């Protein structure tokens, strides 16, 4: 068993792996599409315009996929997205695929998954067909281009971020697009909550915003308002599109699970839940957001919980459920760092409001999980204007310090020599 494998063994293993691959690859059977008319997609597409550019987007359902692509690739966990761009500007534009889904699939990658072992000619037709359907850059000045992007699956409605890129130009769009065939469950639908205007406090300066944010509740409660739930340790300020674009660019997707419905703020379940899934679908950081009855110069203000389930990427399937990991500050701080690379973060600050819970006296949340925190709430402001991390302004609010360190620095000289 411990003997070094011979090249022969390598060959056998490799051959075995190839056979296995072919067996799996053979799952989606391809039949030459007869009708690739995009009229049905066009009909239900969501459209938006900005300046001289108009975009439309629609998600394909299983029926569309069979009809247009020749197989139901949704079963293979690929969500085809039809996009049309009308470029009436005077320069060519590029649709940045990574902005729509950083882990998208190339057309021939999808085609390859439908190949069969001895299907030489058929395989070539599949390749040919999918490359023709793929969205091709650039979109020349004055022209209209339409095509497919092969994305990872999202629930209904899908937040479609479209970054159109030209010389010294970025024209971003964020659309909410219906996902056909998504299991209709009213509990999981996205509620774009609206407050009556009279309930909304519109803050016009940072000081009054800070005061309003510090008055928000520390934590969610369970759905019966009986016990405390996860802390509200993040606030995001901006338009829904700008916030969504930043998150999508860093691989956050809408992903609501049953456990999320237990968390309640302002007397309701989360308005939106996002998760950044690790490779292979392992659980990772979640963000649950509620629209707050606060506006900042007209911008929306969401209060949110950021945390990571116990086990993270190393959890074994189904063993841990969605139990909150105790170190919620770590998850919060790394979300901020992730957003630094999103191109959408404009300002960052920390406010009080969660209330400190030192490690020695942790607080309890749902499932009897414990957590500890420095008690700060991170406030992130998002903008449409693309920004690099050199542009992020750090507000002079509560200075961020590692609270844990003040307690432990005496015993640990390494981190703070």
């Amino acid at each position: 068993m411990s003997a070094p494998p011979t090249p022969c063994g390598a060959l056998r293993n490799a051959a075995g792996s190839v056979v296995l691959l072919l067996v799996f690859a053979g799952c989606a059977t391809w039949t030459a599409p007869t009708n690739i008319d995009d009229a049905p997609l066009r009909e239900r597409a969501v459209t938006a315009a900005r300046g001289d550019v108009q975009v439309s987007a629609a998600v394909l359902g299983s029926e569309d996929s069979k009809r247009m692509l020749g197989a139901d690739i949704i079963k293979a966990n690929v969500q085809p997205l039809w996009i049309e761009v009308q470029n009436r500007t005077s320069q060519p534009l590029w649709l940045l695929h990574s902005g729509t889904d950083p882990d998208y699939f190339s057309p021939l990658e999808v085609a390859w998954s439908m190949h069969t072992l001895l299907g030489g000619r058929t395989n070539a037709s599949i390749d040919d067909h999918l490359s023709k359907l793929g969205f091709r850059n650039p979109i020349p000045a004055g022209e209209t281009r339409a095509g497919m992007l092969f994305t990872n699956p999202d629930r209904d409605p899908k937040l479609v971020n479209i970054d159109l890129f030209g010389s010294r130009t970025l024209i971003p769009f964020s659309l909410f697009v219906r996902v056909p065939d998504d299991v209709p469950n009213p509990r999981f639908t996205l509620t774009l909550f609206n407050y009556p205007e009279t309930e909304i406090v519109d803050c016009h300066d940072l000081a009054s915003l800070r005061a309003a944010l510090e008055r928000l509740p520390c934590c969610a409660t369970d759905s019966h308002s009986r016990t405390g739930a996860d802390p509200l340790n993040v606030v995001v300020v901006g338009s829904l599109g700008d916030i969504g674009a930043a998150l999508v660019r860093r691989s956050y997707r809408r992903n609501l699970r049953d456990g999320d419905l237990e968390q309640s703020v302002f007397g309701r379940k989360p308005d939106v839940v996002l998760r950044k899934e690790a490779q292979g679908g392992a659980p990772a950081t979640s963000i649950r957001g509620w629209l707050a009855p606060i506006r900042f110069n007209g911008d929306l203000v969401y209060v949110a919980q950021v945390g990571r389930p116990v086990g993270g990427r190393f959890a074994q399937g189904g063993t841990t459920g969605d139990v909150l990991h105790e170190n919620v500050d770590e998850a919060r701080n790394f979300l901020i760092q992730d957003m630094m690379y999103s191109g959408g973060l404009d300002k960052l600050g920390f406010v009080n409001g969660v209330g400190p819970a030192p490690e020695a006296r942790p607080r309890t949340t749902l499932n009897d999980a414990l957590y500890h925190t420095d008690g700060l709430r991170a406030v992130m402001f998002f903008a449409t204007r693309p920004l690099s991390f050199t542009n992020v302004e750090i507000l002079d609010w509560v200075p961020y310090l590692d609270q844990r360190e003040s307690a432990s620095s005496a015993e640990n000289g390494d981190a703070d020599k």
Partner: protein
Amino acid sequence: MNGIVNRRLAIVVVALFLSGCATATSTVGGLSYRGRAVTRTDGGLRVSVAVLSAEESVAVYGAPLAKKGIQPVWIEISNDGTLSYFLMSPGLDPNFFPASEASEAFTKGESSSGSDGLDTRFRDLAFRNPILPGQTRSGFVLTHLNEGAKLVQLDLVASAHATTFSILMVVPGFHADYHVSEVFRREIYPANEIVDYNDDDAFRVALEALPCCATNADGSKNGDPLNLVVVGGLDDAFPALVRRGWSPTEQKWSGAIMRMVTSALSGDRYVNAPVSDLYLYGRAQDLALQKARDNIHQRNHLRLWLSPIRYRSKPVWVGQISRDIGTRLTFHSPTFTTHKIDPDVDEARRALTEDMAYSQNLTRIGLVNGVGAARQDAPNENLTTDPYYTDGYRQVLVFDRRPTSLSEIEFFRWEVRAKPSGNLPAGAEQ
């Protein structure tokens, strides 16, 4: 003219020298990694970095991190400036491991009381933000394991300000035979061979005159098309690649091939799959990089060669990029398994360009001729007989150390002649 390049190369030589020493004297325990740390300064910031070997990880963390694909990077930062800085872990590795998550890799199934010790240990070792004026901080960031070489990218952010450092290092203890290209040790081109272009049109002519393809070792057979030109070096181009998840890959036959086969069987994500050698300028690639995706079947590869061309004093690398869409058996590569590439090689080229737009270091892009078009119905073949077709263009990406936002990236004024097109242009080669 070459002052900047020389400075960079000197820094790398120090890095290689120091890590070479450590490999030779590798002793477990103690703080030997600090002794070989590479130090750089900029303004009021001084950073020191060392990548831990598998043995050092065990000694420091009390857990075999390398077995879980985790590699600790030790970082010390002294701040003599007036601003407070934050070190961004996703800059080192967009899929880095938070300390608490890494500790859970070793505490599965244990009661919370049993795992407390390890959890606390991991947390105490982690790098902590912020770095206040006058302060020195040190700690670890846990990244995905790289064997051979590692690009360490430190992005330090302050209010409306950032300072970045990029260090290419050899990882001690994994493979003593890791091949480090000469270009990272010294200037390999005689001064009279180096041509620095300031004029964009002359630069384009030089790029279009480059050979179409990489070749096999004796240059008798053409391999993959050279469809990429990267302008910039350690300080500007490589950070962009690291931030978007690219990492150096093994280049030689080694035990890695066996693990790759196992990985292909299990569908695991295996970050260090080797690539086979391709040749240009009479030598194998100077640097091979890959971006691992879900598993071994899906990864993008790029190979780079340093050319004797400079653009506005920046080094110019000529390269090849392809998207792997599966692992398959071949008899045309000495490693038996190879990667089935996406025959639409332009797709990989476009994907890299788009991905780099989000890297914050891309400043200019353009297309030049030089690859030679190959139509879909009459594809070319690479050395492992994978067919490919292309519009014949070569993508030029210019990077700069100063971060550039998405809306500031500029296009070369070449597109009038080399107009990119979605469909294969009949006269792409003209």
